[in-house]
């Protein structure tokens, strides 16, 4: 089935004991290009490596969509069962804080994109790090606002469970709404925390001058993740905060 393969290795094969020099045992493959130092041994070319990494992240984001999808499904089922109850419960979320957080995340997506752009254009490490730190700052701000909101829910007995208190007409539905609210925003916040961790690593790598126009895949892939987490919020915000807008007491 192989054309060239068989003629090269007719019998038992004794591999050269030195394995460091990939070219020594791979004379045919892209011998004309010197290998980029970031090329991993099992890829043939940088292009292949970049395509693999990017595709990998996209596939991962598909799994993330399915992951959040289960929660969105629960939301859909229970909201359809009692839309008034959801509107009533949503009314008690703080739309102002929600809007602020939405803006914070949209701006963080911009700074993230500028960070990728900086690496792509071989901008000085300082510029790259600036945009990444700016993104992290905005991410942290988002989490700070979230913490304020959570604290507020605790003090007002809006955390589902034995201490949940609800004055309105739909206590059962409201409790369900807040169960979903905490699960959905909690899972999202967890993704933000992981995102901050990734950004810290990327920032350090940028500071060490690892990225330039030839090699910026990690920044790009991390950027894809960050944008995904932002987009999840873009869905969460209206579904959780804004459906109470038409609610009338």
């Amino acid at each position: 089935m192989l054309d060239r393969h068989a003629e090269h290795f007719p019998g038992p094969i004794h591999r050269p004991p030195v394995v460091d020099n990939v070219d020594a045992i791979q004379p045919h493959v892209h011998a004309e290009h010197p290998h980029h130092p970031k090329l991993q041994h099992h890829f043939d070319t940088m292009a292949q490596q970049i395509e693999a990494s990017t595709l990998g992240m996209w596939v991962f984001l598909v799994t993330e969509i399915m992951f959040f999808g289960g929660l969105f499904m629960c939301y859909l089922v229970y909201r359809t069962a009692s839309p008034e109850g959801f509107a009533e419960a949503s009314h008690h979320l703080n739309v102002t804080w929600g809007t602020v957080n939405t803006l914070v995340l949209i701006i963080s997506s911009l700074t993230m994109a500028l960070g990728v752009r900086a690496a792509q254009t071989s901008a000085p490490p300082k510029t790259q790090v600036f945009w990444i730190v700016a993104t992290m700052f905005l991410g942290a701000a988002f989490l700070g606002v979230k913490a304020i909101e959570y604290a507020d829910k605790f003090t007002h007995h809006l955390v589902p469970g034995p201490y949940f208190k609800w004055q309105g007409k739909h206590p059962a539905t409201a409790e369900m709404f807040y169960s979903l609210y905490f699960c959905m925003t909690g899972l999202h916040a967890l993704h933000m925390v992981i995102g901050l961790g990734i950004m810290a690593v990327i920032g350090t790598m940028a500071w060490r001058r690892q990225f330039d126009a030839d090699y910026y895949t990690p920044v790009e892939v991390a950027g894809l993740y960050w944008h995904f987490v932002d987009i999840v919020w873009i869905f969460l915000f209206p579904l959780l905060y804004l459906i109470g807008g038409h609610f009338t007491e």
Partner: protein
Amino acid sequence: METLNYLNDGHGLASWLLTKDHKRIALLYLASITAFFFLGGFFALMIRLELLTPAGDLMTADTYNKMFTMHGVVMVFFFLIPSIPAVLGNFLIPIMIGAKDLAFPRLNLLSWYIYVLGGLFTLTAALSGGVDTGWTFYTPYSTAAANSHVIIAALGVFITGFSSILTGLNFIVTVHRMRAPGLTWFRLPLFVWSMYATSLIFILGTPVIAITVLLVAVERVLHFGIFDPALGGDPVLFQHLFWFYSHPAVYIMILPAMGVISEIVQAFSRKNIFGYSFVAFSSLAIAIIGFLVWGHHIFVAGQSVYAGMIFSFLSFVVAIPSAIKVFNWTATIYKGSVSYDSPMLYAFGFIGLFTIGGLTGLFLAAMGFDIHVHDTYFVVAHFHYIMVGGAIMGYLGGMHYWWPKISGRMYPEGWAKFAALMVFVGFNLTFFPQFIVGYLGMPRRYHEYPPEFQVFNVASTLGATVLAVGYVLPMVYFTWSIFAGERAPADPWGSKGLEWEIPSPPPTENFFVTPIITHGTHQYAPSKEVGVA
């Protein structure tokens, strides 16, 4: 003298535990899933011993309930789902597509560690007292009533899910981006096709079970009402979410086995597959339609009859691609040069048992009949014909076929034939009576049962004993062969495929030169034209 290969390239524990070589990682998986297989088998044996008599006299009801729960959890999540993908898929996909490794070797190692971590959680749950919810974790029992270690077990399933997700991701990217020059999609070995279809289910289905068991844990710990009707939830929603993954999970188990059988049937008939593109696309069709049939698990749970009709219709549709495969395998044997080596015996067994398993699935898809046998031993028999008669036969067949490549040693063929026979006979004796006792009305998960069902249960227990011997034997002679087996040549079977053109065992990076592919696998006879049907 021994040539340098992946097995002797580096010694010591660290060279294994920190390896990024897909072949070594495959062996790490092999060791761990074998351990879980025998653990799950032990639970199965306990179940069968208890059911020898109608009275619950061997163990208490609680212990029995924990036994079948742990049997299900261990076998499904820690053996069947990772078995062929994580061992044979890991070992073979890069070799079959002419690559040095998977796209993400470090991620591959991480997947194994995640699997082990999830396994440790499950073992903790098992050893500290067990779980008694059934592997299905149905709410509200699991969240409100059960007083066993549901959370730890649920976390184990949750964590292991990420191992599946990352493995599926790795395979998909590898098949897309790492194929050798000239290896077009329609020259891919059918095993790679089936692994690709399986990976699609891994990445699309597994996240849903992950979030579902996470919600179960949240409901149990924090008393958030999601599924418990007492807290305003809907227990049937849990069943929808659970089966949205867990039905496709059945295809995670059977598709890889189908891929293995496609390879074996070609190799031991010395003949290319009949209808390549039909076999390849039927894998994708099963993976895709398989996502739309979950509702047939809840025909009697008060779901809308119209929804039930749609699910019933689609469940019949998903049977068609499976039937296409069976017919094509049979046609492949026609005018072949058929040998009776042990892998082929497993393939024969697979075709027969899978046919019965698949056809009895039609009984359950027919709504009017499902009312009667839902949650009885008929269902138990049906899915064991698929999962044990299908998936494990395929796994064992594949292990026998590729063992010379993996270990570089030959196993004793006589013993292997004997073991294959034991597995086939033992399996049928165990599970065929369960069709009958299920049709007679014996519900599943029963610790005690009315005495008129005893004769079938005795037959079943007897069969399980034979089956157990059939399973222990390969482990014994495979282990023996590592130390004393004859050295395997590069191609002991006269097979045609990329994996048979490199030495046994393969060198660390599989190929010294990236191969260039000019035609598909298993081309034995000279043919006028190379291509697909």
